[in-house]
C-alpha cells in the first residue's frame, strides 16, 4: 500500500490509500477520514470516505490548497496507529434472487451485456467457475459482506465480501450502462455488491431485489425514522434468500409500517478477522441469529 495525494480541481484533496481493494486499505481510509473530521479544520466542507480512498472538499477562500494538503498528509501517521476495530452492526437483508422485475429489465438491455444469450446470474456463475446460478447464489449469500462505501446516488451501499481473496467473486460491469434499474436491485460489479437505493441508471449486473427500503426522503418506514439513509461505512450485511411469498409478506409489512430489520451489534477487529475469517464470520452470524 502506497498512499497517493492529489487535487481534484481547486476544491478537493483526493487521497488514494491503495489502487487495489482490500480491507486494510478500507480501514486506513476510514481512520484517516475520521482523523480529518476530528481535526475540525476550518474551511473543510465535506469528507467522503470510499473503498480504498477518500476525498476532502474545502473552500480555497478559507484555507489554501497547499495548507489543507499538508494538514491531511500530517494525519496519515495517526491513521496508521489507529485500532483496526469497529463497534458496528450486522444487518440481515432479505433478497429475492431471480425475481421477475430485474429479469424483465435485464432482458430489455440484453444488447449491452457481455453474454446476451443468458441472464446476469448465469453469466456471473459461468465466469466464476460455478456449475449453475444456484451455486453462485449460495456463494453470494453464505458469507457476510462489509459496507466499504456509501454513495454513487443517495444512500447506495457498496459491499465487499468477508472471504479470502481467492474466494472473492468478480464480475465485470455491463459493456454500456443501462438507463434503468429497478429500485432496491441487488447488483454486482468488480468485486463489489451493491443495493440500488433508487430507480435509475446503472452498470452493475443484476441478481435480485430486496423488499427492504434503504433510502426514503419521507422517512415513513420505521428503520429510517432517524435518518433517510440506512447504511454507513462499516456496516456488515448478511443476505438472506427469500421466495416470492416471503417477499410479498415483507413488502406488506413495510407498507403498513411494521417491518423491523434483523440487526445485532457486533465488534469487528480486522486482525482477528485476518487470523480466522470463518470463525469471525460464524460469531457474527450467531449474534445475528440471536437477535
Amino acid at each position, binding site marked *: 500500500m502506497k498512499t497517493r495525494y492529489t*487535487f481534484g480541481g481547486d476544491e478537493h484533496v483526493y487521497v488514494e490509500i*491503495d489502487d487495489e481493494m482490500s480491507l486494510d486499505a478500507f480501514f486506513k481510509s476510514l481512520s484517516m477520514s475520521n482523523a480529518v473530521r476530528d481535526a475540525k479544520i476550518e474551511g473543510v466542507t465535506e469528507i467522503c470516505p470510499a473503498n480504498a480512498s477518500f476525498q476532502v*472538499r474545502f473552500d480555497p477562500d478559507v484555507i489554501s490548497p497547499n495548507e489543507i494538503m499538508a494538514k491531511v498528509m500530517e494525519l496519515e501517521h495517526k491513521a496508521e496507529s489507529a485500532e483496526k476495530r469497529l463497534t458496528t452492526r450486522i444487518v440481515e437483508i432479505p433478497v429475492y434472487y431471480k425475481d421477475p422485475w430485474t429479469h424483465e429489465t435485464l432482458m430489455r438491455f440484453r444488447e449491452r451485456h457481455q453474454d446476451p444469450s443468458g441472464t446476469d446470474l448465469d453469466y456471473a456463475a459461468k465466469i466464476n467457475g460455478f456449475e449453475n446460478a444456484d451455486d453462485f447464489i449460495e456463494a453470494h449469500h453464505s458469507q457476510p459482506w462489509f459496507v466499504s462505501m456509501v454513495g*454513487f446516488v*443517495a444512500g447506495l451501499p457498496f459491499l465487499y465480501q468477508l472471504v479470502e481473496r481467492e474466494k472473492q467473486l468478480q464480475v465485470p460491469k455491463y459493456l454500456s450502462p443501462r438507463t434503468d434499474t429497478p429500485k432496491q436491485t441487488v447488483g454486482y460489479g*468488480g468485486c*463489489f455488491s451493491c443495493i440500488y437505493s433508487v430507480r435509475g441508471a446503472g452498470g452493475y449486473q443484476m441478481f435480485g431485489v430486496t423488499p427492504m427500503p434503504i433510502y426514503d426522503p419521507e422517512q415513513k418506514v420505521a428503520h429510517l425514522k432517524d435518518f433517510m439513509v440506512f447504511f454507513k461505512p462499516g456496516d456488515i450485511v448478511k443476505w438472506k434468500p427469500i421466495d416470492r411469498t416471503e417477499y410479498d409478506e415483507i413488502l406488506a409489512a413495510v407498507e403498513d409500517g411494521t417491518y423491523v430489520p434483523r440487526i445485532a451489534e457486533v465488534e469487528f477487529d480486522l486482525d482477528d478477522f485476518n487470523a480466522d475469517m470463518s470463525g469471525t464470520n460464524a460469531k457474527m452470524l450467531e449474534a445475528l441469529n440471536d437477535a
Partner: protein
Amino acid sequence: MTLKIKNPGLATSIQDLGRIGYFHLGIPIGGAMDRYALRAANMLVGNDEGAACLEAVFMGPEIEFTETATVAVTGAELPIKVDGEIQDSWSSFVVKAGQTLSFGFLQSGARIYIAVSGGITTPEALGSRSTYPIGALGGVEGRAIQAGDELPTGGTQGAGAGRTVADSLRRKPDTPARLRVLPGLYWHRLTDEAGAAFFEDEWKVAPEADRMGYRFKGGRPLEFVDREQPFGAGADPSNIVDGCYSYGSIQVPGGTEPIVLHRDAVSGGGYFTLGAIISADMDLIGQLQPHTPVKFEKVDMDQSLAARRDRKAMLERIRQDLS
C-alpha cells in the same frame, strides 16, 4: 403570494446554492448550475443572494402572479415578456398582480434564472430548497415543476424596477467555449500523447448534458498506460476501484467521451478521472447548449485560484453597483 405555473417549460426546477454536507452519503450539493447568474438575479430583486429561484433550461415557463413582485431573469438570453410586453434581461422589472410572465425562443446560453422578490419558499430538505429528482429531495415533492403547481414566495415587493447588471459583468461562455482544467486525480493513467491530445482537440457538447453531468464528443480516443488492472477495479483500462468523484471531475469511460460531473453529480464510481474543471468555470458549463464547440485548457493551481478571485471580484462589483 404564489406563482401559478401555467406551463412549466422543459425541465424547470427550484434551485438555490445547494445542500452541503451529504456527499459522503451520495446526496450531491445540487443547486443552480450557474451560481453567478442565480446570485445576480437575487441581487437585482433585493433578495439574499442564495434565495431559491427557478432554473429553466432551453425554454422558459409561463407563470401567473397572484400579487405584485419584483422579478429579474439572468443567465441565457431569450425574450422575456410580461403580458406580452418585452423586458430587459439581467435587469429588474415589476410584475403586477394578475399579470403573466412568459418567454420566447432561446437565443444564446442554456439556462435562465428567474428571481422573484421574497424568494421561492417551498420547504427545505436537508437545509436547501434545491430540487434533486433522483433522490426525490427539495423543490416541489422532489421533482421539476408542473403545470398547475402553485409556488409560495416570500411575498415582498422587492427592490423595484430599473436595476441592471452592466454588460461587462454578464458572464457568458466564449466561442468555442474555454473550460479550464486542473490535471490531477488519475491523470497518470493517460499516456503523454493522450494527455496532449485531450487539450489539443476541439470537442463538442453531446446531447447527453444535464444537471448530473455534461458529455463531450469529437476528440481523439484516449490511450491508457499499460498495466495489470488492480484487484477489484474491473477489466477495462479506464476502470479504477470505485472511489469518490470531485465536482467538476472529468471521467472518460472506455477512453472515448469525457463526462464532466456537475451539481447533481454521482458521488463516486469506478471510472478514472483525469482532473477537474476549475471552480471558476463550473458556472459556464451550465450555459452550454448541445453541439457547442469546446476547448479544454490546461491550467495550474495558481491560475485556478486567480480565476476564482476574478470571478469573486466580478460578483463584488455587481454587489456594489446594486447596493
